[in-house]
């Protein structure tokens, strides 16, 4: 059951909300909480009932581990329990998500013929596995002393974030569950509706609109080299598709949770406006970045730093950082983190390569930040010059890497990426010079060749990309516009140690408020959303 479906919007959601509000009003928050658990489990089983026992089994196992941990004074015992949980959880994830990938890689490398079983990947397994592990890590560190089963279950299964995130932290959710009334509230409902409608527009109209033009480009890439214009169309088209799709889905999740009075963390903050790759990763899939930073990057950095200090080796020292210190304290943790990120996204070498390429970008970015003060000391002039340059470089780098995320094979991805560099020449539909004879000579002079592909499709794809780029680059995002109504929560810094902050009151030129104009605009968006529901919609997250 997708958020952008008739059955979800007209059946599931009204029933769930009505049940929640009525139970909260007449029987209390506890029963509404249980109702939401039931609804969430039903939501998950609507995908595939046979995997519901797996989800429930995983929850009960991890809760049992957590319960045992709360009864242990000894940190060593808690760490052993944590290790058992990691082995089981990661083992389960590895079996369902990575065993075929591993076996096929071994077969390809060693010429063996291990049998590869074809089975359906349990939906959202990466999300709910990692969320449980974050909880257990904090139990092991004794930063959490107590948890109730019903809170644990809803934390994992809450249907707005169950399938595609945001990846929530227990410090964000448990305090909310403690005090939630789940009663109907006009403000929560209004904010929730606006978030849901705008998120649905991004997904069902913008992302699904351009998707129809992106898929054929990657189908062609699987068959051979791709020329310059088509390669850039494939890259930009998919980048925009996944941005609007994923950020739209995240906003829908925020909206749905808010309808019952729960706030989820922000997941996207206009990443395509980033002026550096470091900035990009603080804006794109923020909750995953946060998770990887807290549980892979920071622990690695701390461990390596302690070891180097013990060995008397140099550590980070600003502009005077040595190459060795940089390599070990920045390079290695970044590569390990981004390798993990790539692997988390999917069981395919293309995802790993994508992660590694972004790791390389981050290393270059961090390296530049480290050495730059040596020869460019004026911060103001640097900002003036490098912000626009950084924006262009970042956008180009992110666009260059994205075919690895979409293509079904490394060959197909390389066909697109090499095409983006112009290695396969440039071509356009012959109908263009045919209809504009004056242009034909000039185009031929530039080395552009002509194909029998559709001119209409070529131009329409270009128009879609142009329009979506304008939307991505120029206006504030929805969360910025709703800043006065706390549409999301965000946690700066280390998630294990930082405190929860509500949305900071940033300045933005356009801000939402309950008014006739906004009611009309959101109503128009809602109408378009409903009209778009019957279109074919890609679900990008089934591999996660």
């Amino acid at each position, binding site marked *: 059951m997708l958020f952008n479906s008739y059955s979800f919007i007209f059946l599931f959601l009204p029933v769930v909300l009505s049940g929640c509000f009525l139970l909260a009003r007449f029987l209390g928050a506890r029963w509404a909480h249980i109702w939401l658990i039931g609804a969430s489990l039903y939501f998950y089983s609507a995908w595939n009932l046979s995997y519901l026992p797996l989800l429930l089994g995983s929850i009960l196992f991890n809760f049992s581990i957590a319960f045992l941990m709360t009864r242990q004074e000894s940190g060593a015992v808690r760490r052993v329990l944590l290790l058992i949980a990691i082995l089981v959880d990661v083992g389960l994830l590895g079996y369902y998500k990575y065993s075929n990938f591993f076996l096929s890689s071994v077969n390809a490398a060693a010429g063996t013929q291990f049998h590869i079983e074809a089975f359906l990947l349990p939906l959202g397994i990466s999300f709910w596995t990692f969320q449980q592990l974050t909880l257990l890590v904090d139990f092991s560190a004794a930063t959490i002393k107590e948890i109730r089963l019903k809170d644990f279950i809803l934390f994992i299964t809450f249907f707005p974030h169950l399938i595609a995130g945001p990846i929530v932290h227990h410090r964000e959710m448990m305090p909310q569950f403690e005090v939630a009334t789940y009663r109907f509230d*006009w*403000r929560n*409902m*209004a904010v929730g*509706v606006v978030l849901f409608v705008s998120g649905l527009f991004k997904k069902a*109209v913008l992302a699904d609109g351009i998707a*129809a033009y992106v898929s054929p480009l990657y189908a062609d890439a699987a068959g051979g080299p791709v020329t310059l214009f088509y390669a850039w169309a494939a890259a930009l088209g998919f980048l925009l598709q996944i941005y609007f799709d994923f950020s739209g889905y995240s906003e829908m999740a925020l909206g749905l949770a808010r309808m019952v009075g729960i706030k989820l963390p922000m997941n996207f903050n206009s990443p395509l406006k980033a002026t550096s790759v470091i900035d990009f990763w603080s804006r794109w899939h923020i909750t995953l970045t946060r998770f990887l930073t807290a549980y892979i990057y920071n622990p690695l950095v701390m461990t390596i730093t302690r070891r180097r200090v013990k060995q008397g080796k140099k550590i980070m020292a600003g502009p005077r950082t040595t190459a060795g210190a940089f390599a070990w304290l920045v390079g290695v943790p970044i590569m390990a983190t981004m390798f993990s990120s790539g692997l988390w996204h999917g069981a395919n070498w293309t995802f790993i390569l994508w992660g590694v390429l972004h790791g390389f970008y981050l290393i270059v970015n961090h390296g530049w930040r480290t050495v730059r003060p040596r020869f460019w000391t004026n911060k103001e002039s640097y900002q003036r010059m490098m912000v626009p340059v950084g924006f262009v470089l970042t956008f180009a780098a992110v666009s260059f890497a994205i075919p690895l995320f979409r293509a079904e094979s490394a060959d197909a991805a390389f066909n697109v990426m090499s095409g983006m560099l112009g290695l396969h020449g440039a071509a356009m539909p012959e*109908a263009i010079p*045919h*209809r504009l004879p004056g242009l034909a000579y000039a185009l031929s002079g530039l080395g552009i060749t002509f194909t*029998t592909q559709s001119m209409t499709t070529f131009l329409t794809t270009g128009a879609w990309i142009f329009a979506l780029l304008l939307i991505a680059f120029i206006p504030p995002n929805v969360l910025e516009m709703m800043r006065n109504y706390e549409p999301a929560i965000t946690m700066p810094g280390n998630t294990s140690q930082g405190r929860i902050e509500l949305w900071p009151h940033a300045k933005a030129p356009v801000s939402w408020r*309950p*008014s*006739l104009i*906004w*009611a*009309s605009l*959101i*109503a*128009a968006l*809602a*109408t*378009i959303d*409903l*009209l*778009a529901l*019957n*279109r*074919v919609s890609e679900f990008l997250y089934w591999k996660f």
Partner: protein
Amino acid sequence: MGMRKFLQIWAAIAVALLLAVGLFNYMVDPYWVFGSDRFTGFQRPRADAIDHPTLAKAYMIRRANPSTLLMGASRVEIGFNPQSREWPDRLRPVFNMGLPGSSLKRRFDYLRYALSVSKPKLVVMEVTFEESFGPSGKSAGATVADNAPPHSAEAGDAPPTNWLQEVRDYGFALWSLSALQDSVSTLLHYPGSHQSAMTGTGFSTGGDLREAADIDGYNYVFALKNAEKMRRVVAWSQHRTIDLTAVQRIVTLCREKGTPLVIVVTPGYVDELEIYQEAGVWETYRNWKRALIEIVASAARKGDDVSLWNFSGYSAYTTEAIPRAQDRHTQMKWFWETNHFKPALGDLMIGRIMGKGPAEFGTLLTPDTGEAEQAGLESARLSYENTHAEDRARLRALYAGAAHALCGGNAAGCNSMNKPLKSTRNN
């Protein structure tokens, strides 16, 4: 404004907008689903119904109650005008149920449906060689709406046979972005524009073909279509299975309904036959016609009112000269491009079937006339090829290109002339 009022106003406006959109789409009826032209008098051809033929015609046939039903693919939709003067009064009204890109199986589904909601006195159905390509290759008969939602006439899966499917179809025609866009586009469309549109009798005005001819020139468009056709036929020639199961089922269906059936082998431009020759499937093509004759003869022996007409060949109509490249002024009389004849030729075929029309165009194929027709065809082909060396060379070059793309340079390996028919299923 408080949040409560905001939500109330938002809901009211959203509901009002949805109702307005639904009413607008109903009144304009961009896909001919509702027949609201009966109330509004708005009978302009619908440009966007052309892109949703399975949806449009599934509901149009319910209202049409035709005396003559035309079945086929785009050749029929574009080439046979239900308003043609060649149709005798006793066989009017005529409804054009041509479904572009439809397979023979889809044709059977829609004919069965049409005969369940109407009682025509005559069914005229086209069959082409490429529609009969079997399933293993890249069939030319893929449905046109492959990406549409399932379980609806819009999907082309099947015509509407249950209320849920009808609800989906009505819902799509009233409340979808496509319908809204297409309603606006319908209002902006003007007669004679360079955009194809579907008339109230299911006929396509062929505007986009006119545009291609006017802007790109006939020579360019023919070359484009020939290249596509050659690639398709060469790809199919690797396995060359023929499937006439659906034709047999259609003949049986018409017998059960007591409806006379005329099967028509519609003509492509002469290049079509030359492409079959170059691709090495000429014998297969001839055997295919023999198989069709046998299906019809067998049915006739059982007393069925079924006949088979053939209009493909090397006639003066199918060999009219193509204007030179860069000539955007000269108009062809009989063809838009290799695959599609103009309504003027369609009128001649209708006249011929109805007992009028030029005797040198078209043959009623029976076991008695079949072999003579084949001999005549062979003779005409040789004569044409002797006098059109340039055209032969042109198509030979096309074949080489297609074979190279498919067979990696082994053009000889691609050309399996005289290979027997792999399977002909006609029972």
